[in-house]
């Protein structure tokens, strides 16, 4: 009884210490993860996504594929319920809605909200911690070769009006889920690597 109580106290103390641990203490693990990410030059994944918006009764589901090619090309191809392609390469953003005949190209800087969303994933995939930290306060926990969780808080006030927090979770150099909190709504994306 006494032992178990002691164990419990110790557990709490450890947990408290873990919580109180300065963010920087996780730095080596985060850097290791980033190195691991950078080592993967190309990825092909499928995703499912659910957008919960407070003004809507139901979340809006969608699915499609993701394609990453180092150093800076990321494409999100939504296949259902609407077909949509979103591609970033360098500082350009390409958007395509074939069913509407819409094809647009933007400079990423003109779309700060979009930029933040893009860099949360792209900078992570590129293993570019500096780029990530240009837009976000990064709170990492976990290990580079096991499960990890990375909470991103936008640095700019303006950005926070649209996106309050992005949480990425994964295992080793594989992102498995992305949860984006913005404007009272939550978007959850589950990612599965394609063979």
């Amino acid at each position, binding site marked *: 009884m006494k032992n178990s109580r002691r164990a419990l106290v110790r557990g709490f103390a450890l947990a408290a210490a873990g919580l109180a641990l300065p963010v920087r203490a996780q730095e080596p693990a985060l850097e290791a993860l980033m190195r691991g990410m950078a080592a993967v030059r190309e990825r092909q994944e499928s995703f499912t996504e659910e957008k919960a918006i407070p003004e809507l*009764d139901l979340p*809006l589901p969608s699915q499609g594929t993701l394609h990453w090619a180092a150093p800076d090309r990321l494409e999100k191809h939504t296949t259902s319920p609407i077909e949509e392609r979103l591609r970033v390469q360098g500082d350009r953003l390409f958007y395509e*809605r074939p069913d509407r005949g819409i094809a647009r190209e933007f400079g990423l800087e*003109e779309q700060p909200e979009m930029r933040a969303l893009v860099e949360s994933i792209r900078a992570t995939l590129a293993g570019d911690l500096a780029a990530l930290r240009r837009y976000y306060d990064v709170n990492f926990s976990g290990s580079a070769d096991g499960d990890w969780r990375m909470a991103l808080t936008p640095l700019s006030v303006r950005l926070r009006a649209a996106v309050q927090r992005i949480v990425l979770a994964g295992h080793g150099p594989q992102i498995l889920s992305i949860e984006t909190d913005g404007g009272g709504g939550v978007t959850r994306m589950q990612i599965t690597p394609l063979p």
Partner: protein
Amino acid sequence: MRAASIRRYGPLLAALLLLAALGGALASVVRVRADLAEFLPPGHTRASEFLARELRSGVATSLLLIGIEGVPPQELARLSRSLGAALRASGRFSFVGDGTTSLGDAEQALLFRYRYLLSPETRPEAFTEPALRARLEALLDGLRSAASPLLARFGFADPTGAFLNLARSWLGESHLETRDGAWFAAAASPPRVLLIARSQGAGLDTEAQQQAVREVREAFAAANPGPARLLLSGPGVFAAQAAATIRGDVHMVTALSGGLLAAFLFWRYRSLLLLALAAVPLGAGMVAGMAVTALAFGSVHGIALGFGMTMLGVTVDYPILLLTLRQRGESLPQAAARIWPTLRLAAVAAALGLVAMLGSGFPGLVQLGLFAAVGLLTAAVVTRWVLPRLLPEARIEARPLPRWLAHPLAALRGRHGLALGVVAVAAGVLLALGGPRWQRDIAALSPVPRASQALDEELRRQLGAPDVRYLIALGPGEEEMILRASERLEAALAPLVARGALAGLDLPSHYLPSRATQQARQAVLPEPDVLRERLQAAMAGLPFRANAFAPFLAAVAESRSLPPLDAAALAGAPTIAARLSPLLSRRGDAWQGLAVAKGVTDPAALAAAVAGLHDPAILFVDTKGETEGLLASFAHATVLWAAAGGVLVFGLFAWALGGLRPALRIAAPVGGALVVTLAVLAAAGEALTLFHLASLLLLAAVSIDYSLFLRSSPGSPNETGSSMGAVLNCAVCTLLTFGLLAFCGTPVLHGIGLTIAVGVAAAFLLACAAVPRPALRA
């Protein structure tokens, strides 16, 4: 010894000091105007009047174009952000545009609040149930797409998309690539970032413009630019730069020509006293000319002053002629009395020639003509009555011409055939080239070096600044009246835009609809209960929560009673106000509106459509056509008046010399020199501007001197020889004073120098050839 020299040189010294003091006093009292537009006529048509006013104080005159290059892109972006922030913080600029340009939060809130009054989509049909249904479906679709963060933010308060469409149309698609919060010039190598700033002061306020330029330079220097280069352009920069370049050129030429002139005079006269003597009539002429012009016009234009002084260069001849033509045993007053009839004739003829300018109708040219005419006559009078008294005992004598110079000159005498031949060839060349070319581009009148003009064009093109060739003036009048005119214009030109005659219009009502239009839109907005019912019906079967669109209902209800927005209230939205300010600006009590036609492919149709409105508040202006017309009418008037001046001068000669033949003998070398000069200028590809004209008039005046003085020595070959020496001295002095300007980089100074160098040489040689061959004597 010292007392003796004071007695001797005292009066001359005193005269020079007095002139310097008078000149200094005048310079501090008389207002000298500097801008080019003041030099131009006020315009004969409404369009040219409008244009002249725009050139003088239009918003384009307060624009600064800024480029930075010479370091890697990331560093460029940092410099751009830092410079942009510093300029905004300085408070000296009403607008600073760079890659960080976007709607601020307060601005966004204001525009969002007024969206239904500002949006052209506020029409009755937009708020019907089917239209709302379509909007809601589109919103749902958008929420599924990648644009959902933006739509989730605005879509429920604004399901019709009024605000986002407004923002898109206002901020437009930029030609510029925005990276790292900076505008990069598209495909520029080396990479270059661009900024644009509008200073607070009006264009007319040169001092404010220069202060703004200094502000930019200081902010750039404070941003640790390293090896980066700052490129600056715009009217304010031009003013400062033109002044500096001209000053630099003039300093260089003054030092060089002063040295050469002194060396030449010393060689010819073994006396530097001559320099001091020559300065007296010149100084007196300038002081008198400036005083009379200032009295007549209230101020003197800097250009009139500069070129008036150039033309007064001819007066340097007078003391040289006086001193050189003095005969042995003659005192200076006696010599002055003897040459006076010739000198008087020369001065009056030259002054009469300037009548051409008085009649041109160009305020600047009238000033120039008055300045020079008064100066010339004053200088002649001073040479006759004052100069001899300053130094009655002067024993300055020209040394005989060296043989290598005297011999060929003597051989030239009486070669009428040769002279005629040269003039005929020149006339032929001139005819073959289609006559003298008049400069039709007003930019060439600008004293700005060509390299700076080229930089300006490049920056403008990279910034995607609109081509302001076709403007439509709105008003002047009340703000509301101009905005309504703008809306009428938009409606009238819509078919042309649809047809592709022009790509579009930048209109003041595009940013700020008239009060009438805003009120009409308020009237269109449905009552809250009606809208709620329609919305509920439109939402049926869609997954929106019942109260999802509460912000929309509230906004429409509020919009119905908002006081309409006006220009003063729009100041709360600085980005949009800055877009509006060039198009709608206050001029004294009234407002002036401006519409810019973009991508015009059919100017005739545009002009006809605007004219067809018969709207007194709407005026089509082809800026290029108008300025060309202005310059062409100027050229026409000037040629006419120059011809009239020529006839007058010829009449004067005929009257004074007693016959047409002697008059023709005097006038022929003058006309010949003008023809040769025009031919050389045409062959060199120079298009004639005001400045060439001023030089040609100076040229006419000096060649009259040469012709008269070479002719008027009827005596011995010795005397003709000495008058030839005197005239040669005059010609070389003029060449050294003004001809050296041909080596200047500033287009204006180069033009003057070239004209005078060619002209003086031709005038002298032709005048020599026109002198009869000396009778053979034992």
